[in-house]
């Protein structure tokens, strides 16, 4: 009897607590809403930054870039004379976290624009939410830029943009450049592909392989290892046996670092030219140390770029965050900054925050950003932008060659249905 009595009082306590929480909320949000209507037009930009978890370095960079953009926009009077407010929430680097935070930003903070996320998995989780709420969303990192419409994978979304470079923009010129540089005389160019065994490396490498075959290369190897792999010696030995001219590594994160550390042990670096996708970002390179020496990668941004926008951006960054050594992710801070600036331009062109006018003014919008001249491709919502081949020396990126402005060839189909 007593037991039951207690249970009901526990439940009662729960009732009161949850009830209090529930009753408290609508009041406070109505206050928020009325406050928002009073100041009339504060433009709120939601930033989904993976500030904890395995992408946390990128997350912090994304936030810093966004803060610089916020300060700069407000210093010149905001967007359409409305002050700009940036709200950053932590996605914990997980897709479910990104989805929850996207809902929070939309439903609680009533943001007019979403920026960020660190991985394509997170992006895919956010796309349906932002589309359903008709809130424009700009993916600010590189990689797969999924800009399709949920439910219609072959149609370009009205609410999603990809501001980073995609591998498809870069693969052909990159392979051509490396062939020109490392082909042995009177022999066909030999390429070996390795990658993590999941969606991104597989699709990226599949496309690269297709291009390589079109260019007449010989693909001497193509293999994928699951992310829990800790011993890459057999893989490296197979690569040594196949003796390629070029090795493409698509093992983002820790597995790429492990691979490169073990490749160094077996002396792979001296024998084969190495390049890859999403594997050689600054965080990975920091952890690879000497194992990253001489690796080629393709990128849209380096803090060394010489143009007025970048000089100003780097100067502001140094001033705002003097204790941060450099831009931690190669493109995270610059990417978030650029995405917000171009969105601000689109809002100004539209004269309102209406998502459909925003979409109209984003079509074909051109602007100079720190990474150079950027044009929003109306066909696929992906930013056309200059690309560079960089070589890593002493863990720093050095621009080797400028590939010029590159365009993403078609719409990247989504797995969102």
């Amino acid at each position, binding site marked *: 009897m007593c*037991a039951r009595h*207690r249970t009901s009082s526990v439940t009662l306590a729960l009732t009161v607590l*949850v009830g209090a929480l529930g009753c408290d909320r609508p009041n406070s949000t109505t206050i928020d809403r009325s406050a928002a209507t009073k100041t009339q037009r504060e433009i709120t930009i939601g930033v989904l930054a993976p500030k904890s978890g395995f992408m946390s370095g990128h997350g912090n960079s994304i936030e810093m870039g966004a803060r610089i953009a916020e300060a700069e926009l407000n210093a010149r009077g905001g967007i359409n004379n409305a002050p700009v407010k940036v709200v950053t929430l932590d996605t914990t680097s997980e897709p479910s976290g990104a989805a929850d935070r996207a809902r929070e930003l939309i439903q609680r903070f009533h943001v007019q624009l979403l920026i960020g996320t660190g991985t394509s998995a997170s992006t*895919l989780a956010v796309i349906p939410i932002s589309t359903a709420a008709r809130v424009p969303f700009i993916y600010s990192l590189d990689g797969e830029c999924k800009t399709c419409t949920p439910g219609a994978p072959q149609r370009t979304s009205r609410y999603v943009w990809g501001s980073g470079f995609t591998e498809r923009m870069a693969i052909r010129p990159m392979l051509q450049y490396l062939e020109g540089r490392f082909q042995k005389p009177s022999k066909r160019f030999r390429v070996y592909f390795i990658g993590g065994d999941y969606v991104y490396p597989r699709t990226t490498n599949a496309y690269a392989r297709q291009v390589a075959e079109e260019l007449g290369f010989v693909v001497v190897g193509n293999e994928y290892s699951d992310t829990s792999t800790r011993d890459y010696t057999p893989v490296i030995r197979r690569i040594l046996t196949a003796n390629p001219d070029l090795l493409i590594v698509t093992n983002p994160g820790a597995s790429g670092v492990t691979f490169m550390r073990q490749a160094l042990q077996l002396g792979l670096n001296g024998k084969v030219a190495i390049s890859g996708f999403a594997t050689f970002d600054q965080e990975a390179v920091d952890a690879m140390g000497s194992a990253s020496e001489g690796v080629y990668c393709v990128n849209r941004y380096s803090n060394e770029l010489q143009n007025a926008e970048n000089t100003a951006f780097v100067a502001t960054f140094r001033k705002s965050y003097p204790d941060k050594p450099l831009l931690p992710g190669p493109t995270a801070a610059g990417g978030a900054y650029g995405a917000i600036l171009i969105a601000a331009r689109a809002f100004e062109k539209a004269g309102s925050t209406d998502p459909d006018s925003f979409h109209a003014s984003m079509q074909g919008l051109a602007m100079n950003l720190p990474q150079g001249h950027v044009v929003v491709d109306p066909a696929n919502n992906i930013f056309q932008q200059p690309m560079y081949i960089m070589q890593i020396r002493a863990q720093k990126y050095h621009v080797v060659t400028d590939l010029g402005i590159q365009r993403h060839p078609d719409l990247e189909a989504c797995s969102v249905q």
Partner: protein
Amino acid sequence: MKVALSMVLGAVAVSLVGLFADDYLVEIVGMALLFGLFAASVDFSWGRTGVLTLGAALYFGIGAYFVAFGQRSGWDFFGSVCAGTVTSLAVAVIIGITALRVRASTIQFGLMTLVASLSAQQLAVSLYNVAGGSNGISGISKPILRVHRYVLDLGIGSRYFFLVNAIAFVGLAILRWLASGHFGRLSLCVRENDERVAAFGYDPKMVKLTSTMITAAVSSIAGALFVPFSGIAEPGLFAIRPNMLVLVWVAMGGQGTLVGPFVTAMLLQIVQFELGSQFEDVYLLLVGLVFVVSVRLSGGGGLAAVVARSWRHRIVPTL
């Protein structure tokens, strides 16, 4: 009678959230309810029968994946929930028979379920054609129920939340009802001394197996209902963290009380959603610290025990 009344009261109270709170809070409380049900179901086998399931997220995840996969392939919502539950039951039976066939230690059984959960995570990443690989299956919306000619779109308003609310409290009530009946007393006996239970002519293995199956089924249903809220089923559902978190909820809520873990899971989940983004980079550090300290300070049942120590002997039914 009082139990039923308190459940109805609880459900009605939480329903207020669906009526008055903003959309975001409704979703949060909805998810929290399901975590509560999940915790209660784990408590049913761990706290009541003494069968430790370290990998309970396996069942939660299976339920979640089935609904996500089902929606993508155009299955009926109810059908996918059932399919997930049946699969979870099958997995639970296989693991249960394996580990309980001979007298494996509690910990050994627990670790096996954890290995199974981590294997499922690997499998979900590897099967990218079926399970979407590391991206998971995203874009899951609230289901539309079709019975005969009647169509009910749960995506409108807080309808789905009310459904979940009802199911969570009915689920909790059923667990409590099972726990207070003959089977519940039997499972308590098994927890205390399974050899003596065997001497009375019962098969303790069957009691443990049944208990595990109840956990599997209820966890799977909670996972299945969770996906339309979160919108995504991903391999992380099977990872170590969710597996540990649910144990944390049970330990903090007070083992064997069912309601304790339910409430604890709910409240902690709500707190995490509400405050998590304010502490950001130190959030996990705080979780770890609070956790160590609360386990360390309490006398055996976590935070709840600190509060409830005085009447613990009454809420934990003993023989």
